[in-house]
């Protein structure tokens, strides 16, 4: 605190327009008003121009009949459904690719990241080669490569490769038997749910008991046995209320069963291998960020290497890894829009492609599509930030 005699004896009252606080506020207000006015001008002018040029505007087209077919849909769809439905079909297909991609990329990434730090020379070098190759090739090329590498060598439907007459592989896709639940299958699902809830409570109990007494409980094995065993038991007791629907060659292609189209396979393969390489580097950086002293300290306390990795290294590494992981997940989701290059019916292909062209309403369709990617990205971001908060170092 300054001594009293250093303050100016008679400070004139500062007029409000010279006060820094009010000024800062005013300027920000002006800026916001300016941006809003500009936005309004753009919006208005767009509408006016489109009207002048006789271009239809508005979102009425969403309830019109689409009249075109889509290769693969997770929900019921045919030509008689609306353009609004094509939006949902595209959106779900995008989410499917993103979810599968994130799952496999994470798996590959963690595996390769740890492998690159392996003390085994061959394993470490192989991981390095993988990372440096796939990280440095353009994604679009990789998608094309997998698409044509997956497609070209496979036989035509009539000469399909088959496994026990129930799994078929040809250049139209992979055909698997589909489990069809019969009435009574709900009991099995209930058993599964019960098992999952039970495992959750067992894990909590085991954790508390260990905190209290130090005694450990094999949660992983008991939990695994419960989740697999309980539904299986109910399934057998209730008389197997499920049958398999086998794919069968009918006319030009296989019908029935589960179908994995080559577009999806190529896209998920390319996205997860490409993003996996980046995640591997994130994982490596995370592990290297934990000082070796931590490991040595853990060994000094008598922890075995596996336990050290699980309880000391990884929890600390995660703090470095998660933020990078978030941006990789976002990248993967946005990159999934490259699907359009190989004809996978994602949002960009179906909605911002065919629907846009059939209706000609570019402004509305593109705005909706951008809105979707923004929303998905923000949601992933939100979730990962929450996860990051939970994993952060709790400072006391």
């Amino acid at each position, binding site marked *: 605190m300054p001594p009293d005699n250093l303050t100016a004896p008679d400070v004139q009252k500062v007029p409000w327009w010279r006060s820094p606080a009010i000024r800062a506020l005013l300027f920000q207000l002006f800026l916001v008003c300016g941006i809003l006015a500009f936005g309004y001008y753009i919006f208005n002018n767009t509408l006016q121009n489109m009207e*002048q040029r*006789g271009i239809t505007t508005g979102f009425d087209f969403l309830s019109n009949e689409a009249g075109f077919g*889509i*290769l693969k849909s997770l929900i019921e769809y045919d030509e008689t459904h609306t353009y609004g439905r094509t939006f949902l079909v595209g959106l779900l297909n995008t989410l499917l690719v993103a979810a599968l991609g994130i799952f496999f990329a994470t798996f590959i990434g963690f595996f390769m990241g740890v492998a690159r730090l392996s003390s085994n020379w061959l394993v470490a070098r192989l991981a390095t080669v993988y990372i440096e190759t796939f990280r440095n090739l353009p994604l679009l090329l990789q998608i094309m490569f997998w698409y044509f590498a997956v497609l070209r060598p496979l036989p*035509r439907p009539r000469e399909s490769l088959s496994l026990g007459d129930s799994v078929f592989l040809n250049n139209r896709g992979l055909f698997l038997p589909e489990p069809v639940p019969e009435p009574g299958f709900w009991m099995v699902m209930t058993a599964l749910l019960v098992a999952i809830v039970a495992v959750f409570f067992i894990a909590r109990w085991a954790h508390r008991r260990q905190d209290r007494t130090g005694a450990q409980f094999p949660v992983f094995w008991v939990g695994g046995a419960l989740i697999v065993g309980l539904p299986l038991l109910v399934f057998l007791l209730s008389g197997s209320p499920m049958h398999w629907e086998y794919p069968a060659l009918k006319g030009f*292609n296989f019908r029935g069963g589960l179908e994995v189209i080559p577009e999806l396979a190529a896209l998920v393969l390319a996205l997860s291998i490409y993003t996996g390489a980046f995640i591997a580097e994130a994982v490596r950086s995370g592990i290297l960020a934990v000082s070796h002293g931590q490991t040595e300290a853990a060994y000094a306390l008598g922890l075995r290497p596996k336990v050290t990795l699980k309880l000391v290294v990884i929890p600390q590494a995660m703090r470095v890894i998660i933020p990078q992981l978030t941006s990789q997940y976002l990248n993967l989701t946005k990159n999934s829009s490259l699907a359009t290059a190989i004809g996978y019916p994602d949002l960009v292909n179906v909605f911002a492609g065919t629907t846009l062209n*059939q209706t000609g309403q*570019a402004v509305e369709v593109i705005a909706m599509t951008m809105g979707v990617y923004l929303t998905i990205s923000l949601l992933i971001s939100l979730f990962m930030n929450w996860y990051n908060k939970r994993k952060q170092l709790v400072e006391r």
Partner: protein
Amino acid sequence: MNSKRVVGLGAATLLSLAGLAHAGQTLDAVKAKGFVQCGVSTGLPGFSAADEKGRFRGIDVDMCRGVAAAIFGDADKVKYSPLTAKERFTALQSGEVDMLSRNTTWTYTRDTSLGLNFTGTNYYDGQGFLVAKDLGVKSATEMDGASFCIQAGTTTELNLADYFRSNKMEYTPITFDTSDQTIKAFEAGRCDALTSDQSQLYALRIKLKDPNSAIVLPEVISKEPLGPVVRQGDDEWFNIVKWMLFAMINAEELGVTSANVDDMKANSTDPNVRRLLGVEGVKGEWMGLTNDWGYNIVKHVGNYGEVFERNVGMGSPLKISRGLNALWSKGGIQYAPPIR
């Protein structure tokens, strides 16, 4: 970032910032910049494709060249924008191109709700099917459950759906951005058949390693009148593109060719020919052009028959017969209002 979104964004931006159109604006702008910006396809032999010297050639390209000849007396004053089917209308709406000549089907929706005008039909087409010979299919009605490679954003997509729905058959569409991708996927065996306008099927077939391994089925399942498109609201420009094609058709009817046009201009006594070539009667200034606009089109590009034969007819690898595209007086339906 992929190109579709760039076009979409570009359209949004241009529509946001551009001023309003007025009649004559396009011609003034074209004259000022000294060339016609023409939207063509990304590569379809016979319609618009680059030749071995890198110059665009084809029946659609000749529409652009005809307009340039009418305006500048020089058919080479054209710059081309290769567009996919998905990009084409946005590119025209946003003013990225002055005219679109890209085997585009004239339909009600496109003519009325997109802010565009079709100026005529330079090729009467219909949708057909290309199948591998060893598939053993003789007719489209045998194709229940088959999968089809198609180009996104085309009337093809809609016709296919209609055809299979009305015949109570199932099908799987596999949609690609460019016709080039469709033929590659067809060759790779991803689909049983490729469906598109018949002219395109012949054009795409010569891209196959062995063109004889595939056949075009006899069925034609739709009407596809293909023609040039301009923006709505500029009637003068609309007239120029419309009458360019009419002049070509009239020239064929009157027997005026690029070879004899100079002779005809000097010596012909037929008043129809004299009006077409701007020697007497009508004035080019009614469209903002010089009187010899018709002469320039025939001289530098040719009459409709020449354009057809050179690009898709017997003088080309496609060897498509005139069929519907013959003059009305020779069994076809190509017909143009008189120049008088």
